[in-house]
């Protein structure tokens, strides 16, 4: 399948249209001092796609995600976003480009309510200054109402109405993950990066999260790149999978192709590395 992919995109087995290349990694190498985290990796993410990055522990997946998000700047190689080469950027500039993410270790404001946490995801859509907000007349009020409406739609979408006013610290782990997804969605991203969205969840929570990821992709047309350990989940959810091991790309393709790739099987089942 990989070779048939032209720039116009392709159609998946279940009839979803995948668009052209949204983001392209070209020969990325990332080093921390003497340690090579990523070695010469190239792949692309297409418009509307669910793209997974998998690999054993320490394979460099999270580093790769941080390169995509612009948090790490690779020493070698280039990142193209919408066809343009991306210069080193500050996190807020990345967010403005339409990239949002969740974290492997939940990074929410624990003392704030779910609603307030999700509202922080709207920061890029708030333009009034601190003085206007203090006076709270006209523009500031209107802006808050618009943003609240957008947030309520996401709360409804992720079915977290019942915990709207609950402080995050009081929530169980699975729900916190969902709140984090809500906050990322509040930014109305074009590209959503999920760092192990199902880690530490039970089967039911995983099923819920999988459904939400598919629904987000389907309803909002959001492109999703995710890292995940649960192979069953990855194979079911993603359109294409990149497999990494020891910082190198060892496979790339549809779940079926990857599943039958000898290098991938070796990496997962374990053979001696010379």
């Amino acid at each position, binding site marked *: 399948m990989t070779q048939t992919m032209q720039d116009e995109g392709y159609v998946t087995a*279940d*009839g*979803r249209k995948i668009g052209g290349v949204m983001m392209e990694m070209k020969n990325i190498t990332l080093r921390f001092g003497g340690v090579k985290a990523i070695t010469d990796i190239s792949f692309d993410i297409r418009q509307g796609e669910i793209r997974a990055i998998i690999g054993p522990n320490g394979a460099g997946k999270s580093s790769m995600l941080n390169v995509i998000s612009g948090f790490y700047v690779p020493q070698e190689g280039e990142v193209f976003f919408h066809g343009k080469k991306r210069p080193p950027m500050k996190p807020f500039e990345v967010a403005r480009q339409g990239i949002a993410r969740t974290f492997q270790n939940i990074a929410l404001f624990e003392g704030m309510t779910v609603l307030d946490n999700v509202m922080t995801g709207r920061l890029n859509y708030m333009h009034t200054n601190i003085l206007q907000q203090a006076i709270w007349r006209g523009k500031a009020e209107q802006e808050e109402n618009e943003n*609240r*409406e957008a947030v*309520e*739609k996401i*709360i*409804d*979408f992720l*079915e977290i*109405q*019942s915990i*709207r*006013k609950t402080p995050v610290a009081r929530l169980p782990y699975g729900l916190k993950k969902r709140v984090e997804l809500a906050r990322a969605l509040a930014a109305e991203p074009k590209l959503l990066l999920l760092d192990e969205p199902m880690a530490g969840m039970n089967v039911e929570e995983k099923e819920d999260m999988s459904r939400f990821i598919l*629904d987000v992709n*389907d*309803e909002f047309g959001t492109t999703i790149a995710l890292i995940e350990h649960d192979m069953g989940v990855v194979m079911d959810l993603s359109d294409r999978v990149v497999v990494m091991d020891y910082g190198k790309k060892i496979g790339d393709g549809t779940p079926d192709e990857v599943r039958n790739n000898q290098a991938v099987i070796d990496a997962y089942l374990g053979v001696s590395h010379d």
Partner: protein
Amino acid sequence: MAQSSQAAGGTMSIPALLLRNASEFGDKPAYREKQFGIWQSWSWKQTEAEVRNLALGLINMGVNEGDFIAIIGNNRPQLYWSMVAAQSVGAIPVPLYQDAAAEEMAYVLDHCGARYVIAEDQEQVDKVLEVQDRLHQFEHMIYLDPRGMRKYDHTRLHDYAHVQEQGHAARDELTPELQARRAKLNYETVCVMLYTSGTTGKPKGVVLSNRNIIESAKSSAEFDNLGPGEEVLAYLPMAWVGDFIFSLGQAYWTGFCVNCPESPETTPSDLREIGPTYYFAPPRVFETQLTNVMIRMEDAGKLKKWLFDTFMAQAKRVGPDILDGKPVGLLDRLKYKLGDIFIYGPLKNTLGMSNVRVGYTAGEAIGPEIFQFYRSIGINLKQLYGQTEASVFITVQPDGEVRADTVGVPAPGVELKISDTGEVYYRSPGVFEYYYKNAESTADTKDAEGWVATGDAGFIEPDTGHLRIIDRAKDVGKMADGSLFAPKYVENKLKFFPNILEAVVFGNGRDKCMAFINIDMSAVGNWAERNNIAYSSYQELAGHTKVYAAIQAHVEEVNRSIAEDEMLSGCQVHRFLILHKELDADDGEMTRTRKVRRRIIEEKFADLIEALYAGKTEQYTETEVTYEDGRKGKISATLEIRDAAIAPIRTQKVAAE
């Protein structure tokens, strides 16, 4: 009442009532639903337009008179409208339990032969699609929430809003047809078909006519003075007859407002925001709420705890009397008033019950302590006794005559009789027409004169006229001396103690009653923790002497309360033991809905029953258990058997205080 001014025929069907309300109440809210965090409301006028458009849409889709339309989902205004729209076009709405599995739905959908299904969301649509091959009459499905369904094959699927639009677009052409169909509706027309949950065998479709529903709604609304100003929260399953009467029958008769929660999980906070004036909940809900309050009070500061305890004691003493309008001293009234400011008021507010004028509980027995708690803080909680076949109402408690141990007097228009076997029979305008496609059951339940068997045994108190339900008729037996044996009655009394999870009482045909007790692990475990009682297993805790002592006190208290009852005083528990394992559905000892299976327990623990009657003080036993993964094992224990003190039987009937 305002209704009497209406011409006859204007109130002979639910759609007719809707038209009346739209002209009489116009802009007054009929429905509210919380969407995206904000309460949206629809006036009676808007409701009429919504229902009309949907009805036109249904005709447009080819719905015929007499078709069955299944309705599946949580309480949503649109689903209530669907029922009325179905009635408007001469079809019969069949609401289904939204949490039923696809298999269970398949039976009901096939049994009624529903051609159309109106489903809330993807979850419900998926369930119907899963079993559609087996549904020969099923043709089209309408869904409310389009989320996730873009990729579905839409040859048989339709968006609710789209159906309404199409109906509206074709209004010039179809309105005469709608009016003609609506004009044919009368008291004899079928209003709704509701499936009983079916504790024995397959569910039965209870057919209720407009007469049943409207007469029941009318007389019950008059009984409690319900007016157009009431607010209710519709949160109980739409397939349940109670919700149909409260949220549709009474709402359309009186014109009050029905509020739908945002989601099932948000119900408690929605309840607080709405503050219903008329409220219904099964005992389980009241129980859970009370437990939550008590747990939170345990964690409260000293001062708050003291305030709570002091004023709750005062409430317990005089609260119910104040509510019933009985004479109470001035000082007590003042203290109660003070308590209302500090404790009862805020508590009612937290529970969402500040405005409750009439509250009902039914379905099963409610613990007297729980019942009294709500009444003591000024919530007019009452009991009613009813069933689907009666359009709910058989007996209700009038204001001022509320007691925990009776279910009230016959509802307006209801006649009661008790058969020789003690079974309760009733006859009323609410009595169902027939069971759909089940003439045999219809004949078994309803006789030629219209008397319906409830399946419950009970008696009418001679001095007050209140009905008391003792037990399921089939469980009631006779002791050796001929006196009445009602195991469930005793078991319920035992189960009202938090420490007792389950109890099984034996004594049919014997001279004495004996009991098995199951302790409630969470309550007893908590108690053990607070009292530094070490234990390593359920079995060890169950056999602890201090636990035995506590349970013995409970049993003896129950005996004292049973002794007050002349008819049932023979059911006092003479000896008991605490079982070494929890009765479990996996072991076949209970049904999945946690009802005790007497026969199986009698067989399985025959050695223990024998030991109880033989007067032994302990007994060794081995029991086979099934683990959750399906493996089987054996547990053995030597169980202590204790005697419980028997209270002297009072020959004089003691009047309720």
